């Protein structure tokens, strides 16, 4: 009998050994914070707000592509399918050639450039939606901060939807935090009108939340009330132009005047190039800029497409300085897939300081005759910093600045039949500096000034190259301006909008392709 007991006891002993430690299976993440434990302290809210801006920053390349690359700035010069350095355009030509398609959308998944890993716009919209819900239910954030943060959230969300609205027209709307229910995860587009209604309501909510707090945070690297008002002007000018609504133009003008009244420190810097200098971040001209810093974040996308390889550029010359490029000074470290058209460079008045501050012309030199011939150009507005022999593109990327305020104001004035002279001339005077001759250069003394809309468009063209504006400007002024200035023809009006790329369409069967593009 003793043996049976031994056997029984050993069996039971084995069991008790195990069951007693089952609670040991409750392990929490060590190096991240579980969903249930976040949004418990004010500093967690602060870091999440920084995260929203950090994620916003990672969308910079998409803002540039959507806002500008299809316009009349970039391209390979006639007679070549490659950049003047020989680099292949690798699909980017679909933007300026207006040959976007299902399989070559060049901005995929509502906000990701092909070949680049990253998050689309809806990722950050989801983060913002989450933040709004959490802010509205928390007690750990002081009321002033809470309302400022809500102001940012609504303002930035409106900015994202305005990007989507201008690029795709009808887009899905999400305003609640991401909760994935796999059986019901797909979402159809909302009509463009609803998107616009959301944008305007978000702007109003943002303005209300800021409650007149015009302070800037983080050297203007955070969204602010002024940014919301700039966005408001941008949006209302669009609807004013598209709906011939004088009221909307007035709303835009009022928003801009409000900024001028409440933020008297805003002004144009005397030197155009110093606006973008890495040593001059958050300057008086900046209203909101995406913040980059050496060893924190650099715009590597600039090097991926817009500036040349070191060993290719050294074959060329800079005639203005009468020197050959070399790999120490001109170490752009890039791949020039999107060169600037020579004609873009030549549109500038040589006395305009914005010309060389924006574009680097490159020449070949006949070694026997010494004659320079223009070979091509590239953008050098963001020239970054030298770091141990390597160039890092760390300039801030302006979203809104005072020159934009002035020129939007000029636009509103033109829409309302008022004179835009004051604002345009401030911009021109700064651009020409000592060369400014009011008699010939001021509005309305240039030939183009006979058509005030073209005058403003051209001024914005000179002022904002590489700030993600030109294509949107043409679109805002009206479709005819797009056909006039770009390769897109009225016959292909459908291509004013962007196609939805193949995999995005497949991943959401409720999505309908932008009309006019193939959907499979």
């Amino acid at each position, binding site marked *: 009998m003793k*043996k*049976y007991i*031994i*056997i029984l006891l*050993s*069996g039971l002993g*084995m*069991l008790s050994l*195990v069951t007693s430690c*089952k609670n*040991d*299976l409750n392990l*929490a*993440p*060590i*190096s*991240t914070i*579980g*969903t249930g434990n*976040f949004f418990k302290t004010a500093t967690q809210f602060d*870091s*999440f707000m*920084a*995260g929203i*801006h*950090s994620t916003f*920053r990672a969308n910079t390349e998409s803002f540039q592509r959507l806002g500008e690359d299809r316009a009349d700035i970039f391209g390979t010069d006639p007679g*070549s*399918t490659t950049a003047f350095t*020989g680099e*292949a355009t690798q699909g980017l030509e679909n933007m300026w050639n207006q040959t976007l398609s299902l399989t070559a959308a060049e901005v995929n998944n509502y906000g990701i450039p092909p*070949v680049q890993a990253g*998050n689309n716009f*809806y*990722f950050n919209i*989801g*983060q913002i939606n989450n933040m709004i819900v959490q802010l509205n239910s928390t007690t750990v954030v002081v009321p002033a901060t809470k309302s400022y943060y809500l102001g940012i959230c609504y303002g930035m969300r409106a900015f994202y939807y305005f990007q989507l609205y201008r690029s795709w027209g009808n887009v899905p709307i999400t305003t609640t935090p991401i909760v*994935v229910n*796999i059986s019901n*995860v*797909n979402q159809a587009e909302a009509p463009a009108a609803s998107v616009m209604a959301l944008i305007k309501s978000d702007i109003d909510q943002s303005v209300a939340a800021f409650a007149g707090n015009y302070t800037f945070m983080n050297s203007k690297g955070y969204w602010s009330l002024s940014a919301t008002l700039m966005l408001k002007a941008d949006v209302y000018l669009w609807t004013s132009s598209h709906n011939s609504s004088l009221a909307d133009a007035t709303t835009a003008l009022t928003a801009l005047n409000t900024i001028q009244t409440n933020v008297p420190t805003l002004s144009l810097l005397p030197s155009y190039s110093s606006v973008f200098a890495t040593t001059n971040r958050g300057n008086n001209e900046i209203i909101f800029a995406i*913040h980059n810093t050496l*060893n*924190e*974040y650099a715009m590597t996308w600039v090097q991926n497409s817009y500036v040349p390889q*070191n060993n*290719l550029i*050294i*074959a060329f010359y800079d005639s203005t300085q009468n020197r050959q490029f070399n*790999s*120490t000074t001109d170490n752009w470290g890039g791949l020039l897939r999107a060169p600037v058209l020579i004609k873009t460079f030549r549109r500038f008045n040589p006395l305009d300081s914005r010309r060389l501050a924006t574009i680097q012309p490159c020449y070949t030199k006949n070694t026997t005759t010494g004659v320079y011939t223009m070979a091509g150009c590239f953008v050098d507005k963001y020239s970054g910093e030298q770091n*141990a*022999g*390597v160039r890092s593109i760390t300039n801030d990327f302006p979203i809104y600045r005072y020159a934009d305020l002035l020129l939007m104001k000029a636009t509103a004035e033109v829409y309302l039949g008022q004179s835009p002279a004051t604002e345009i001339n401030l911009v021109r005077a700064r651009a020409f500096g000592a060369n400014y001759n009011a008699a010939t250069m001021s509005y309305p003394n240039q030939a183009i000034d006979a058509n005030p809309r073209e005058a403003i468009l051209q001024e914005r063209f000179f002022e904002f190259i590489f700030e993600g504006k030109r294509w949107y400007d043409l679109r805002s002024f009206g479709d005819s301006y797009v056909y006039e200035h770009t390769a897109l023809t009225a016959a292909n009006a459908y291509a004013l909008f962007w196609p939805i790329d193949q995999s995005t369409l*497949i*991943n*959401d*069967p*409720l999505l309908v392709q932008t009309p006019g593009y193939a959907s*499979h």
Partner: protein
Amino acid sequence: MKQRFTYYRVWLLAMGMFLCSIAHAQNIKITGQVTASDDHSPLPGVSVIVKGTNNGTQTDASGKFSINAAKGDVLIFKFLGYSPAQVKVGNQSVVDVSIVPENKTLNEVLVLGYTTQSRATVTSAVAKLDQQVLATAPRANVADALQGTVSGLQVISQTGQPGASPLIVLRGGASIPVPGGSGPAQPLIVVDGVVRSYSDIVQEDIASVDILKDAAATAIYGSRASNGVILITLKKGKQGTGEINYKYTEGFNQNRQGYQFLDAEQYIYYGRLGGIASGRTVAAINQSAGYGLSTTPTALAEYDIQESTPANQYLLKQGWQLMNDPIVPGTQIIFKDNEKQIQNMVFRNTQSQDQYISADGGNDKGLYYASLDYYNEPGVVIGGNYKRYAGSFNGSYKVKPNVEVFSGLTFSDNQNQGDAQSDLATFYRELSLQPTFDPWLNAANTIPNPGNGGGSLDGNPLYYIQHEINSDEVDRIVANAGFNWTIIPNLTFKLSGSGYYYQEVNQQFTEAEQTIAQMQTTPQGYTTTRPASAFNDRVFTQTYDGTLNYLKSFGKNNFNLLLGAEYNDVSSLNIYTSGTNAATDNINTVNASTVFAAGSGNGSYATNFRIISTFASLNYDYDQKYLFNAVLREDGVSVLSPQTRIGYFPGMSAGWNVAKEDFFQNSGISKILSTIKPRISYGSNGNISGLQSTSSNTQYTYQGGYGSTSGYPQYNGLGAFTNTQLPDPNLQWETSTTKDAGIDLGFLHDRISLIVDYYDKVNSNLLTQYTLPATAGFSSILTNDGTYQNKGWEFTLKANLINSPNGFRLDFGANASYSKSKVLKLPYNGQPNNEVGTIQIWNPKTGGLMTVEGEQQGQTMGNVYGYKELGIFQSEAQIAAVAGNRNDEIGHVTGPNIAAGSAGHIVPGDVNWEDVNGDGIIDSRDQVYLGNIFPDWTGGYNFNAAYKGFSLYARFDFSLGNVIYNDFVARSLGQYQGTFNMIQEMTNSWSPTNTNTMIPRVTYADQVSGSGANYTRANNANAALDGENSQFYESGNYTACREITLSYTFSKALLAKTHVFKSARLFVSGDNLFYIKSFSGPDPEAPVTAGTNLINGIYQGSYPTPRTYALGVSVSL
């Protein structure tokens, strides 16, 4: 959860009661002698065990033994190289046994996890590695020995880098192989009870390798076993006189010949011609690297090519040559051919060395085994080197008659330099360097030329090897200890604990570097970022397990019951730092750096993972005729939510030893058919390896997470957090359910044995990355919504063909596996068949569209579709006739009757694509089926001939049924990089004078608009499997000669005279000797995405396994 435990406890309690009801018998002392059946010599060191217990002993020097056993017990006699024998104890007290040298597969002892068992009574699918495979060929990674040697396992050598692990897939893998994802988890590797990697295990230390395949066998390992279990048993000491063994192997490694490239003259010719063909200007061509005629100081320093002028004719005396410029008549080009230089620098012949010494011995109380090993293998590509020091000790001692303690320790330290760059970089880009590139800066060829700064890819690799200093060291220490306590006879309790400590220390530093262009400036430019990094990755695994084993027989009914429990904890800590801008090259560690960026480069990261388990198994046989086995395991894991974390994994199997039946033995058939054992099994097990990685992102999925914004945790200096992972509390176990039917057959007294298995394995609840729509923001979420089925056949044949009385013996062995997989279920997404990533092509049979590629329910994975090349257009007339109205939307070229596409018109030399739907448009719908990337038949075969002391062993493996997309050839011929060298096949490209070819006309950078996309159709920066030119899909069928060994074993008589040696053996072997293949590249093995275990079917240039010739000697004292 609590409640489910209670049920289980009741079940176990009942089992305990059952144990109690079993009566117990009295022990008697048995003595006897063991001899060899062939020469009747007494055999020392034979282990004698009472079956099902740990009660055992060993024979002494004269083959004699003595052991306590009860009437009815079964004594098992085991000796390496001999078939084990079993004798049932009756009334006799003397048991003399003659054991048979092993030539029988059907009686081999199989290690089954927590127990061992003879194949004669095993009823599930288990394979055993033939020890012969481990005997000679030196191996940096022992897993290579599994290639083609075990049925049901597909083993693919991914790279020839020494020490690298192969890809191992059991029975088609237990997860859906989604392109771009990761492949099936590797089988669970258990080494003497410790779950670890097979890397750095010394093959000479291994006593046996057993592979558990069906769920009835693997269920005992529960949640980690759905990809199979590989059990490695290390050698133990033997009772009797002590022995010292020494083995020395020297290997001579050779690179396998790859593609041949154009020489400089051919390269200049085709490069310049291609530019013209793609509409480039002569000026643009002359700006191009390599074949251009740029006169910048940099270009002159970098490339040995110039326009011929009177001033540079002196170069002809320095080995330069002259040629006519093919694109500018009347001009000549002067150049130097440096084509072979880079190849000769990258590849080398190396020598590897393996030294192994061991000592073992023991008496009736204690046993020990100790060994030391040194292995060194420099890679045949410069830079790589695998060096390993390893040692092991294990021992046991009977502290009391019924208590045996045991402990063991193994350590290994490997220093694996790895290659300077990825295989792709070496085998595609570096070998494609312009043949006019001058790899040296000085005439004496001692100072390497760094090239133009495309990193180490575009210059002399020696420059980068000199300036980029890196090291990687992995230490593995396994310690275990425990005891066996025979509480009462036939009831044994075993408790053991083990710790497995893994540490990887990696350091990298890049000195100040220059490009050739920076060298041309005054003053010279330097890149002085001097990135330095180091990490220390520590993983500590603790395992504690206890088992209770009870053995009982009633008459002819034999029971073996096992109860067990296990606690497993894995904690990892990764500490990493990286800095830049050190002031000097002279300090290689990170402390000299001055800038430490926040983000992925600096930090530490910790995870923790736990499994707590209980299990039970029951083995029953009636007179060894009717066999039954049942297993149940319960696992609880920390990575699932409390609602779902407990899983139950049952398995059962049954078999019938027909040949043991009287009616069978009495029939005449038994003279021919000596063994016949049909068996069936059913079981399920789980898998959570997808959640088990040391990355926190997957480990804590069910809880979701907030963490540092990916890669850039700062915004304007502020800490930035985002929601990095959506919570999913519904995640569950992946489960695999396997039905297996098999038969073990023996013919002619088992001289020929055949084991056949058929399986049907359904892997359900698979962790699947469900692709989310754009609006979710997150690209995908893990769900349990996939079901994947594998079905297949496995055959293992072993035959003794000749066993002549004069001592000549010839054996043949072969195995083959066929597997076919299908997706049964995917997450619901509203699409037909829940398809993901599919496209539609024209189906000529139905005259409609069909959905292919991607994943869809009911579909086999890995099918490949592309554009069929019918031929090359020879003339404008042919184009007008065949494709006058064609619009090739892929190449953006059109026929002459319609407006030119953005890349112009189709011209002679372009490909005539098959217009499958005949609509005049070549678009994605015109793709055709071109094969499947997964092999369906794999296996191997071997011959062993022996005469007196000589033996000759040859081993082959094969793989059949897959296609490989040869991206390497397509990119090279398509001049993907624009200016890089092309392979020799370019000389067969179409031209007005070379028309009988399938290779299109030469173009510049084929993927660039204007070139017509003749070579790479799905042209994008990343190689694509589908949608390419059908010409570049090649068959992956091959058979490889893995080993031919000739060895000589000195006769015992001769050795006896030395009074020193007990045995001695000399051998010479050739390993990985050759492939018989149709694939055009050097290495036909199915291409695998590095680090993912996923067969991707895209050959981009890989590091083939080197050919090795080895010489070795092994002696024992």
